[in-house]
Structures are given as structure tokens and as C-alpha cells.
């Protein structure tokens, strides 16, 4: 026992933790050390590391808006895609700027999403009541990676051809798992056995429709939070957008030769490390290996909240209906939207509403206990009377 704690030993973090939790605790301290260094420069309320998810969302919206601008000039067809992008880059005012913003905001979004994931893993904010946000976040990360990859196809330059060949080879390697499945997938992707007039519209559909689906998973990502930090504070917002603009100004988007121009070797092409690493890796490894590694990493990430599981439901907030006045203070303060006010359920008819706790959403933090002036809600393992007795005992 470390010190008087109101929780069961297997739940309390800190010196009492053993095994996996102890290792996570060591990394947690490392993360907090980085925070502390940043807090010495920036006030803690504006620390960008406290708003990694908000920055990700901000850059996603920047990507979306710049993508809509690009889309108004884009023609998804095999013979006109390259020339429409070239027109946007060279003729349209700020056209190359919009392309650069679209690319670097997407890169930044991916970096921030990865940092957001690691930070939430290492600070133990990924399991228990946070399993749904974690799993939907992994889906969002995989979708972001795939949407970014398909974005490079749409330009339909030399690099797009190399990426298409790489994707087809990876898809066809699936024939080894289920006979014919890989070929079917490759045909569905291209709209035929080889690149034809149907290929570019399909690639564009993959890019844009999946981008719309992100909102569905974002909704799942936020649904367990009462007031999700969707937007970072103004300082961090300006810092993020400024970084994207500086990157776009310093390093404009390159124009590569068109797909029908013969090129000496594909290795001369620049590849985006964040979205095109599988294509680069294909130069050294087999498609099956890359797919296998991706599948295993994704599977581990998906089941991470249950490896090992955090004990739940032992300390869920409990309402004493006789004391509840239906004042809604606990429901308003709950950061996880776990308390609903049920009309007509209060044993005292004058009070009408009764606070009811949703066990699955409850984080067992007890913020509702601090909110309730009427002694109507309590954590069973840290009852307020027990706390008072402990305070008195410690001070005597």
C-alpha cells in the first residue's frame, strides 16, 4: 500500500502498480517530462501537446477546405487529370499554394494523429471507458493513411503510375490467401485489367468518399465526451496553420513528368514518407510481408484497450434517488456525458427529474460527486462519509 487511497489496489496507478502498468507508468513520466519542458516556455493552457487531437481535427478541416478548392479545377479522367492539375498549378492564382496547403496539412494531420495516439497510449488514456474512442481513432488513422495514398494517384503523373503498379502488386499478392480475390480487387480498383478511362474516376471516388466517411468515425470518436476539445486554443491554431503556410511557401509542390512520358528510372521520383512509405518499402520487401506487418500492427492496435484490460464497473457513480433534486448539476459537469436526467423518475414527484448513470460511459472519476450539493451521488469505493472520516482521522 502506497498511501491512503480510496480505490482498490488493482485500480490505483502509481507505486503500487506491477508488470505492464509499472512499465506504462515509467513511460508516462517520460511524456510528462516533455510536457513540463514545454510548459516552461508556453503557459500550460496553450501547450500544443495538450491539444494534439484538436490540432489533428484543425488540420483535417484545412485539408478538406483546400481539397474542395482543388476539386473545383480537377478532372478525374485518364487523359485530362494531369493537364487539369497542371492548369491549377501554373495558371490559377495561388493554385500551387492550395496544392501545397492540401499536401502539408494532410502530412501534418497524419503526424499529429500518430502523436495523439502515442500520447494517449502512454498516458493511459486508451482503455476502460475509452475503448470506443481508441478503436474509432485507429480506424481514422488507417483511413487517413489510405486517403493520403490515393491522393497521390489523382495527379496521374509518373509517380502515380508507380504507386498504381505497387498497389496492384500488393492486391494481387492476396491471391495467395484467397484464390482469385486479389485479382478481383485489382480489377475493381482499376475498372478493368489495365488502366483505362474508368480508373481515375474510381480513384477519385476512393479519395473523396472515404474523406466524407471520416466524419462518421469522428462522431464515434467524440460521442463519449461531453465537451470534446475539437479545436485547439487560438495560439495553437495560429501556430499550426502558420506552420502549414510556411511549409507551403518554402517548399512548393513539385510538378513531375506526365504519365505517358518515358522516364529513365522510377527511383528518381520524390516519395512522401508519411503516406507513400509502403511504396518505398516495396523496393526492398515483398508485398505479402508489408501487408502482413500492416495487418498485425492494426490488429494489435485494435485490441490494445483489452491488453491488459483496466478493471471497470467496480466504482461506478451511484445515485441515491431520495436525495436527488433533479438539479442537473452532475449531468452538466460530467465530462463523459454519462449522466442522463430521466423525467418523471424521481421518487419525489415535485422534483420530476432523476439523475441516472450510464455504467458504460462512467469513468469513475467522481466529478459528479464534487458537483452534487445534496449528497445524492457517490462512488461506492470512495463514499463521501468515508472520505470525511479519513480527513478527520488524518488530522487528529
Amino acid at each position, binding site marked *: *500500500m*502506497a*498511501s*491512503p*487511497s*480510496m*480505490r482498490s489496489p488493482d485500480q*490505483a*496507478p*502509481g*507505486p503500487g502498480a506491477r508488470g505492464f502498468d509499472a512499465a506504462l*507508468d515509467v513511460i*508516462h*513520466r517520460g511524456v*510528462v*517530462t516533455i*510536457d*513540463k519542458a514545454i*510548459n*516552461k516556455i508556453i503557459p*500550460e*493552457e496553450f*501547450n500544443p501537446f*495538450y*491539444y494534439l487531437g484538436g490540432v489533428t481535427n484543425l488540420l483535417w478541416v484545412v485539408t478538406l477546405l483546400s481539397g474542395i478548392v482543388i476539386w473545383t479545377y480537377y478532372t478525374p479522367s485518364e487523359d485530362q487529370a494531369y493537364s487539369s492539375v497542371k492548369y491549377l498549378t501554373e495558371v490559377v492564382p495561388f493554385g500551387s499554394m492550395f496544392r501545397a496547403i492540401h499536401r502539408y496539412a494532410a502530412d501534418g494531420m497524419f503526424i499529429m494523429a500518430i502523436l495523439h495516439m502515442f500520447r494517449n497510449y502512454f*498516458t*493511459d*488514456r486508451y482503455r476502460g471507458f475509452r475503448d470506443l474512442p481508441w478503436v474509432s481513432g485507429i480506424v481514422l488513422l488507417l483511413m487517413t493513411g489510405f486517403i493520403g495514398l490515393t491522393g497521390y494517384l489523382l495527379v496521374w503523373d509518373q509517380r502515380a503510375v508507380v504507386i498504381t503498379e505497387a498497389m496492384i502488386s500488393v492486391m494481387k499478392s492476396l491471391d495467395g490467401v484467397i484464390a482469385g480475390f486479389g485479382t478481383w480487387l485489382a480489377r475493381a480498383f482499376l475498372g478493368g485489367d489495365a488502366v483505362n478511362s474508368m480508373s481515375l474516376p474510381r480513384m477519385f471516388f476512393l479519395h473523396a468518399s472515404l474523406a466524407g466517411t471520416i466524419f462518421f468515425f469522428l462522431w464515434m470518436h467524440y460521442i463519449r*465526451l461531453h*465537451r470534446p*476539445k475539437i479545436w485547439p486554443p487560438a495560439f495553437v491554431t495560429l501556430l499550426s496553420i502558420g506552420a502549414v503556410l510556411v511549409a507551403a511557401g518554402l517548399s512548393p509542390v513539385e510538378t513531375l513528368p506526365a504519365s505517358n512520358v518515358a522516364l529513365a528510372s522510377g527511383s528518381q521520383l520524390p516519395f512522401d514518407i508519411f503516406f507513400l512509405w509502403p511504396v518505398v518499402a516495396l523496393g526492398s520487401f515483398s508485398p505479402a510481408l508489408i501487408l502482413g506487418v500492416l495487418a498485425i500492427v492494426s490488429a494489435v492496435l485494435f485490441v490494445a484497450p483489452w491488453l491488459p484490460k483496466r478493471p471497470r464497473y467496480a*466504482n461506478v457513480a451511484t445515485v441515491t434517488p431520495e436525495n436527488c433534486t433533479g438539479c442537473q448539476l452532475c449531468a452538466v*459537469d460530467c*465530462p*463523459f456525458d454519462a449522466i442522463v436526467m430521466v423525467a418523471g423518475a424521481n421518487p419525489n414527484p415535485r422534483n420530476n427529474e432523476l439523475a441516472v448513470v450510464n455504467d458504460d460511459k462512467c*469513468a*469513475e*472519476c*467522481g*466529478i459528479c*460527486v*464534487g*458537483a*452534487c*450539493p*445534496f*449528497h445524492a451521488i457517490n*462512488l461506492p469505493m*470512495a463514499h*463521501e*462519509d468515508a*472520505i*470525511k472520516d*479519513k*480527513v*478527520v482521522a*488524518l*488530522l*487528529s
Partner: protein
Amino acid sequence: MTATTTTTSKTNPMAASNKKPKIFGFLCEWSLGRTDYINPDGSVKGMEHIKTLKIPCSGFLKPEWVRVALENGAQGVFVLGCPLGDCHFNEGNFIINERLEQERGRWVRQKVIDTEGRVAELYLGATAGSDFNQMLQEFTDYIAGLPELVVAKKGAKAAPATKAATPAVAAPAKAAAVVPPAAAVPAAVPAALSPVAIPAVIAAAPVTAKAAAPAATKADAGEAGAPKKQFKRWEPKK
């Protein structure tokens, strides 16, 4: 001082001697509560006059527990949470920050405490051990410079189980419980002006302390470094 009143303020004898004032802390389990700066009996290592209790989140703190601690002899109470913006439960430290901002004013108006600085907030991450010790040292010095605080217990011990514990309602009877003895009120303050009628800005305790021993108070404050600003929220040294 007379024994007839339940509450009284006088010059702190502890400041003169080496005895440290009793301080109580509520620690968030996820910030420094994770670490081993705390003895098994709940006191802070190296500062045994500070007793602590771990709670699941700083937002879990019911403000009335601060009052319970003050009633039981604590001269100062602090709440430790994660750095603002980094609460494990997203909002707990912002919520307790707002609650305490409200409650401090109420306690001063109800004359539970003489100055808002007696209830402090610390927001520290799990590695901020040196900041923690330094802040607690400053807090101890600050509290030692204040006159001793004795808070009347609110009725019987079982009473808080009812609605009466709501601190928002300052019933005259409750306020009267912390009235300084009539003899101690200086002549400058009209006797007819009962503490209930005193505007909120006039804190009772400094007045009585001055009345009891003005010279001694000044001397004490000078020795303790005369805390000018009210330490409500501690910031780590930049």
C-alpha cells in the same frame, strides 16, 4: 482570548516557535499521486506536518471536505491536480479551479477562513517532485505567517448527511458562530455592525488579529516575509 466563543483568531504562536502549521492536501491519483513523495501514513516525505489523502481526480473534491479539514485543525488546505489542460479525466482540474474560486469567497464571507490564500491549488505533473516540495515549503511559510485559524464545527458530526451542509446559504446563526468576541472588536468598528451586515470585502480575521495584538502581528508578518500576494494558485518557477 475567551473560551466562550467557538471560533477565534489570534496571533499565531507557531510562527514564533519551530512548530509547523497543520496542512491538509487532497492529491489527484493521476498527477503526483502516482509517485512516491508520500509516506504510507499519508504525510508528505520530509514534511510530516502536511497530511494528504488520495482522491481519484481533483474534480472529485467536494468543497465541503475542505471545510471539514479546516474544522479539524488544518491551517491550510491545498488541492493537487494534473497540469491545467492535461487532466486524466479531461476537465477535473478546470472544474475544481472554478469551484474553489467560488467557494473561497463564500468561506471568507461566512468567516470560515480569514483569507482566501488558505485554500490553494497546485497543478503539477507526475515528475514535478521538486516543484511540489518547493511550493509546499512556500505554502507552509505563508500559512505560518497568518494568525492561527480555529473554525467552529458545524453542528454534530452526523449533520452533514442532510442538505444543511450546503455552504451557499449563509444563515445568520452560522455566521454568528465565527463572530470574534465583542471585546476584541476595536472601537473603530461600530458594535452594532454585526458580522452578517459587514460587506463581504471586509474579512473578519485580520480585524480581530489587529485588535488582539497589532504589534505582534506586524512583527510576525515581517518575520515571515510579509506575504503580499495571495497564493491561490501556484505556478512552477519558470
